[in-house]
């Protein structure tokens, strides 16, 4: 059973006992992500995340390594548009150490100038590694095209010019602005005693002062009024297509019919960002797989409908098979989308989609780490009730709701189309001379 407590400084603590393995997973979530960055500081939240592994007042830089490892544990963190999070999973006797680390991270980060400078090139290397992948590069361009005003438009890793210009003071200022207990949730799942966890959380975090939070950016993305297109012409060996539509946030009741629609189009990927990387969706009988992969137009197709705090985009991606023009892939894809916008899905598709989503709920909550992620993720973006009520909400989705969602979302004026149309390469990775 999930138990919630709030410390006097505003820190939310969520504890769930799971006695299936002698493990505990601790996650500390902050309600800050790349949507909270202002122009010129894109990428700051992600860079701050990196800096928060570089030592604290009471964990010297050279002693960061080993604290969790001595308990066989793993640790990590990630940043996305709405959130930044840190985790440790280790044997349960590491619980107090894990809480200590997270309290230190919240209050006592060092941000040594040399470490800030060294990490600049690490992050630019991470950015370049992503740019090496044409699919990832196109994704970034499509999102930037679909949004004109809202900060969801810039990539979480940031634009390179901003990463080159940012200073240590920018990083530390952002850290001090947002890393406060009244902007955080601490989630503990595992072979633990809830009362003891709450006592230890109070011990480690109770003295960290709350702070008045800065006002958030309030930009609302204006309604899209016509199709947008972006075409990347760079050297490469494969062609990629992405089609994006603005969609409601997870707060909106229309999000659930859209999940069902996505399952019917490309297969249910589930809702766990942390675990969904492990297992592709069941999709061979879906509409877009049959129309694109089944007919040899694409080697892969996928859909990405993520639960987000504010309205984001639903992105359908396809990789054209060698020799297939992107125009043919796009035409086939849009035919299918137009058909579902006109006629909705069938009762059989509704049943299958719900079955898939329910199975994924089981599969993606198979470890203390995954369960803790889901509790913290939804608490951060919408409230944990969204997670605990998910099965009920999916069960209630009707054919009519899916048809309405498809009709409203899958319009030309709500669409952004992206092509990565490769220029031919010679053996050295140079563009072949067209002459």
């Amino acid at each position, binding site marked *: 059973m999930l138990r919630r407590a709030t410390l006097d400084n505003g820190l939310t603590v969520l504890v769930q006992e799971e006695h299936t393995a002698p493990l505990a997973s601790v996650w500390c979530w902050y309600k800050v992500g790349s949507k909270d960055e202002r122009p010129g500081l894109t990428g700051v939240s992600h860079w701050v995340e990196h800096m928060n592994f570089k030592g604290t007042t009471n964990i010297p830089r050279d002693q960061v390594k080993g604290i969790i490892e001595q308990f066989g544990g793993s640790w990590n963190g990630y940043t996305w548009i709405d959130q930044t999070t840190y985790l440790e999973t280790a044997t349960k006797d590491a619980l107090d150490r894990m809480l200590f680390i997270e309290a230190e991270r919240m209050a006592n980060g060092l941000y040594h100038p040399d470490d800030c400078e060294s990490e600049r090139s690490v992050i630019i*290397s991470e950015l370049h590694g992503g740019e090496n992948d044409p699919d990832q590069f196109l994704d970034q361009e499509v999102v930037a095209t679909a949004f004109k005003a809202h900060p969801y438009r810039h990539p979480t890793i940031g634009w390179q010019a901003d990463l080159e210009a940012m200073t240590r003071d920018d990083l530390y200022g952002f850290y001090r602005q947002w890393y406060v207990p009244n902007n955080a949730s601490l989630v503990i799942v595992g072979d633990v005693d809830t009362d003891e966890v709450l006592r230890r959380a109070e011990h480690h975090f109770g003295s960290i002062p709350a702070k008045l939070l800065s006002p958030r950016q309030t930009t609302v993305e204006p309604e899209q009024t016509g199709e947008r297109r972006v075409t990347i012409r760079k050297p490469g060996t494969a062609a990629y297509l992405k089609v994006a539509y603005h969609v409601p946030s997870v707060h909106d009741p229309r999000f659930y019919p859209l999940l069902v629609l996505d399952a019917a189009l490309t297969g249910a990927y589930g809702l766990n960002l942390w675990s969904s990387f492990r297992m592709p969706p069941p999709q061979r009988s879906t509409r877009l797989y049959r129309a694109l992969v089944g007919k040899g137009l694409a080697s892969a197709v996928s859909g990405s409908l993520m639960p987000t705090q504010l309205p984001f985009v639903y992105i359908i991606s396809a990789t054209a098979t060698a020799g297939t023009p992107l125009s043919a892939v796009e035409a086939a894809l849009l035919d299918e989308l137009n058909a579902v916008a006109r006629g909705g899905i069938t009762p059989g598709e509704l049943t299958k989609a719900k079955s898939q989503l329910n199975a994924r709920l089981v599969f993606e909550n198979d470890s203390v780490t995954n369960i803790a992620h889901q509790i913290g993720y939804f608490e951060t973006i919408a409230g944990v009730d969204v997670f605990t009520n998910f099965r009920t909400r999916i069960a209630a989705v009707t054919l009519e709701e899916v048809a309405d969602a498809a009709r409203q979302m899958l319009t030309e004026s709500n669409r952004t189309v992206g092509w990565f149309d490769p220029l031919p390469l010679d053996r050295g*990775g140079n563009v072949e001379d067209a002459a």
Partner: protein
Amino acid sequence: MTQPSLVPARSTLDNGIVVLAKRTRTTPAVTINIAINAGSICDPPDAPGAMYLLSKVIDRGTTTRSADDIAEALDIRGISLGVTVTRHLFSFICTCLADDFQDVMTLLGDIIRTPSLPDAQLGTRKGEVITMLRQDEDNPGVRATESLMELLYPRPHPYGRRSKGTVDVIENLTRDRLAALHAARFAPSVVTIVTAGDVDPGESLSAIERVFGDWKVPPPHSPPLFHLTPATSRRRVDIPMMNKAQADLAYGYTTMRRNDPDYYACWLMNHAFGQYSMSGRLGDSIRERQGMAYYAYSTLDANIMEGPLLIRAGVSAANIDRAVASIDEEVHKLVADGLTQKELDDSRRFLIYAMPRALETNAGIANYLQTTEFFELGLDYDVRVPDLLRAVTLEQANAAAHKYLSVDRATIVIAGPYQR
């Protein structure tokens, strides 16, 4: 800390299929992991990539089910079936709800025993594989690693071949050729089935007996093992990929077989060198101290034949020479001065105490049991492995570094926007 003890139920069917079943109750689900000793090592010499292509088409029709039937059977249950090919194993892996276990095992039996390999499906899957090969050509990480393996394992050694094959080979493979390969390589004597999840081991065994018990096919010939001549000099190959934002660096050696007595010493040595925490000594130097790369690590893949130790890093073109020099320096220091006792103890403690995490999920348990069965490590391996690690001395770990690593015998490949 009390170590976990899996104690799976192990049985052998009359036809030779080995069954390992472990009951867990974490979730109402079960992972099925079926491994057949028919990996890419079984590719015909003139058709590298044949087993890989077979893996792409084998689940697209059987003598009693169409591709659509199979798709529906999987999708309605929320199952994504993974069919993968490694050097030695052809694997079918999926997780299903426990209530679907019987039906899914029946489906897997059909796919494994009686694939129809329809020509239409084969044509479509060829298009997918060729597209993947084209994508690999534009991927610096793949290019660097595959080229390094070709250098470390020259022909005819199978570890040096691209498991996906080549466009020419894939285009020319026929249904009959794949069917013959399936007939020659798929047999109960080389099959291990692991189930891990909320299914009673007795129920698991009876389901497998029902589906596979009457499968009678003679044992296949064992694929040949190859003798390896380790590198005797330093080699370096640069692959210019001027359209890329940064380069991938692959640096490596051939090492040992999994059953080599040195294995545990080498495992610990590699862990301290390129795995521990933020990737051991390599990560400390290249990422943490010098800020040159987002990743820098090493892997040890001891296998049936002598596997590689690979060092990998992603670095900007401007830092390539510095990165190579830094790796050289770390290799040299490791060989000349060895690890410290603390480094060895830290890695040892981590590996022992990490076992509960590795064995927390059904998929993790199933994978672990397949590995222990494949390398004949014994049903009590999870209980014995802490002592095997504790028995390694600092001298043994350092001797492993001295034996397998040398700056003068390193093979290096750089793929990316770089030309010397």
